[in-house]
């Protein structure tokens, strides 16, 4: 059947400037740029990844929207009609990549942070210590001390394993398979340099990254790819993935063509076979089953590492999180509906789940109401875009935050949403050797750790302006947030007052 889809983008070449160096042709991985005596774009193939425009030495390429590809209509927007045309043609589920692009309200942008004036002085982070150090893991409610025989005080309470972070921002779970080994390397190196953690996602851990064990969260997902005893122990923390914000209740599928030699070894599956993660874990059909897996993992790592459970933000997230903490998890990771993905059915990504801001507020409050907030750390993921978002998430109650998309953007991603095609022109979400080599892990790591350094500095400025010198004085301190343009119910759910109200 012939495609009736109009081109989404128009690629304009300024032939006066073009020197026919063909760099754009070599760089385009979507078959848009062709050379027929001169560069001729096949508009329909353009995904607006901007690889060609970025690398054109003459700045001769401009990419614009195909304005009237669809006649204007306020109900039948281009996106809707495009999807109908596609499905009429194929009869299939629409796949997509990255996070939810729909214009849902971004609650982070409706919260404002406090600052000190006169009565409590702000603190200058350039002159005074400003502490971001954070520990993830289960904490007891109280400590016990005793005098030893020399009359000194000793700590009697044995603390459960804790993971130290120098900055409360982790890299999100992205599997080797969904992204390239070079991207994995860059994340691991950056996590190591910045004192934080990267997350293997559900695709196992390549042997080359074993030296970074102290900065790695190893994930155990429903497909159990690459999970073995050594894997579990080559980590700072183990995470059981129940759900993902971009596709709550949905499994995953890595097509066989991406499963080459290295991925095959890492995932422990034959070369060329599809790697299918079922929607549920088939050994977890209830909270008590989850508890068994948590403790099976704890046994496997000899109780030396915290175990996290990651869930998507769904309607009943607070009660679910409470159950998870009571089931023995040391960390709960909540992934909001704006979280990213390598591949997800579009209908799920765009319509399922709830905003992370509301989920986080509900979970933190619920754990406090039940007196078990100290028993687990809360990690907030899905839609964190800036250090401002991080500060607001921490003030709502998160111990740490996660960046996935922001990390990819730092490495070059242009959010073209074609991760699932395997053609990533930036060498990130692809396994094709000619593309993956475009990402230099050293450069990627440098850019990632630059981003975290910049955010750390900004977080310290925020703390200083709040007149506090330690992140724990911001954590859960909703009194320092005010809502703007929010209705009463939303304010109540977030646990914050509207702007204009004092203490």
């Amino acid at each position: 059947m012939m495609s009736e889809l109009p081109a989404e983008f128009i690629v304009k070449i300024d032939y006066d400037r073009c020197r026919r160096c063909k760099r754009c042709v070599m760089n385009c991985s979507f078959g848009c740029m062709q050379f027929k005596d001169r560069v001729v774009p096949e508009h329909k193939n353009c995904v607006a990844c901007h690889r060609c425009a970025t690398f054109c030495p003459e700045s001769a390429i401009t990419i614009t929207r195909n304005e009237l590809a669809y006649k204007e209509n306020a109900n039948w927007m281009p996106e809707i009609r495009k999807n109908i045309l596609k499905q009429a043609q194929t009869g299939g589920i629409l796949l997509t990549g990255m996070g939810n692009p729909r214009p849902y309200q971004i609650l982070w942008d409706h919260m404002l942070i406090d600052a000190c004036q006169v009565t409590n002085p702000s603190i200058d982070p350039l002159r005074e210590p400003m502490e971001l150090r954070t520990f993830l893991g289960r904490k007891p409610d109280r400590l016990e001390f005793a005098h030893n025989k020399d009359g000194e005080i000793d700590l009697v309470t044995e603390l459960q394993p804790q993971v130290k972070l120098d900055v409360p921002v982790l890299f999100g779970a992205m599997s080797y398979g969904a992204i390239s080994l070079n991207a994995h390397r860059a994340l691991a190196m950056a996590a190591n340099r910045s004192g934080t953690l990267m997350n293997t996602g559900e695709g196992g851990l390549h042997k080359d990254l074993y030296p970074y064990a102290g900065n790695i969260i190893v994930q155990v997902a429903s497909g159990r790819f690459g999970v073995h005893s050594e894997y579990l122990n080559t980590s700072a923390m183990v995470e059981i993935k129940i759900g993902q914000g971009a596709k709550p209740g949905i499994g995953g599928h890595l097509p066989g063509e991406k499963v080459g030699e290295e991925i095959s070894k890492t995932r422990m599956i034959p070369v060329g076979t599809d790697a299918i993660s079922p929607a549920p874990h088939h050994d977890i059909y209830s909270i008590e089953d989850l508890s068994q897996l948590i403790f099976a993992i704890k046994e496997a790592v000899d109780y030396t590492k915290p175990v996290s459970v990651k869930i998507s933000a769904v309607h009943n997230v607070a009660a679910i999180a409470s159950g998870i903490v009571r089931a023995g998890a040391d960390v709960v990771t909540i992934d909001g509906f704006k979280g990213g993905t390598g591949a997800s059915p579009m209908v799920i990504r765009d319509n399922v789940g709830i905003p992370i801001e509301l989920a986080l507020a509900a979970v933190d409050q619920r754990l406090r109401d039940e007196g078990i907030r100290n028993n687990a750390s809360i990690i907030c993921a899905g839609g964190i875009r800036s250090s401002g978002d991080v500060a607001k998430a921490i003030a709502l109650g998160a111990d740490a935050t996660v960046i996935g998309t922001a990390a990819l953007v730092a490495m070059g991603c242009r959010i073209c949403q074609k991760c699932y095609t395997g053609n990533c022109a930036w060498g990130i979400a692809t396994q094709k050797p000619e593309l993956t080599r475009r990402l230099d892990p050293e450069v990627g790591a440098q850019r990632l750790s630059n981003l975290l350094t910049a955010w750390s500095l900004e977080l310290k400025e925020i703390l200083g302006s709040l007149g506090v010198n330690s992140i724990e004085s911001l954590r859960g301190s909703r009194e320092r947030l005010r809502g703007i343009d929010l209705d009463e119910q939303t304010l109540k759910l977030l646990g914050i007052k509207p702007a204009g109200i004092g203490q």
Partner: protein
Amino acid sequence: MRCNCYIPSGCSISGMMSESGKRMDGNAIIRSIALMHDRGNGLGGGFAAYGIYPRHADQFAFHMMFDTKQAKKQCEEYLKDTFDIVLDEEIPTRPGGVFEEETSGKDAEYGARPITDPPILWRYFLDVPEEKTTFVTEDEYVVKKVMEINSKFDSAFVASSGKNMGAFKGVGYPEDIGMFYKLDEYKAYIWTAHSRFPTNTPGWWGGAHPFCLLDWSIVHNGEISSYGINKRYLETFGYKLELRTDTEVIAYLFDLLVRRHNLSVEIAAKALASPFWKDIDRMPDREQKIASAIRQVYGGALLNGPFSVILGHSRGMVGFNDRIKLRPMTCGRADDMLYMSSEESGIREIEPDLDEVWSPKAGTVVIGELHEEV
């Protein structure tokens, strides 16, 4: 030159204690806080005194404030149901009384502002009925009832609830509050005092310092910038914070850490004003382990923002500052006496002949304790 003596910063605190348990009248503490007149604005002053009710030392002394007779009646019904009232009486006052003494402060204008519009001030000496303590301790029971009164009754307020101690506070300059409450006629081995320059909460009688719970009393100069999380942290342990001010969190945190979690006052102070990680990283192993564990477990109790605090309890007095000393505090010793004050002048005014005087470093604790035999 004289005009430069003014220090226009908010609040002053002062405390004095006889470690041998010698009881002193309230004149000295009033003079000390009167000297620092300019640090307050007349919207709140108060005192805590320990050892004032030797004849009722075994009963919980509730100092109550009522806005109306109706409120008093309702609250009394409640007290009758929950406690055995051994004695109740009006707290003696000297209406119109003002501080008229000379101090070495040159520019202060004393004595022109008699206390007006006091609420009904009443004190109750209470026993906890035995049958009420089957499942909880006496202290636990009293805390719960104090929280209930302060949250349930709009017009009733428990100013203090400890044994053999009491809080005397209100709206006005502290020296006048002191004369109003006739503190010159009480004898105590610990006195603390506060003069208020309220900025974040309105001046009302219940909102003056000290804040008390059981025998804890807090006077505080500063603002707790971490109030939001300290409040939510305490709420997870069942505390109700109703007083519209940040100071009460300090009293409740000490109650939680020392009474309920059984930590020493030193360790509790380490949780409230923790050492920096850069210093913890350089500590010897044993201390490092302790300090890190405190920060990891008691992060919600960390007090941030500028403060100097004097904590009183029946066995002693504790002074400490925020982690970077954003508010002043000076300490002094003479014989068995320990003094703490926002300014050295507040100590010199009542004890010119000090054995020792020092300004404690940021985040360090100064502890005064009754001798063991007392």
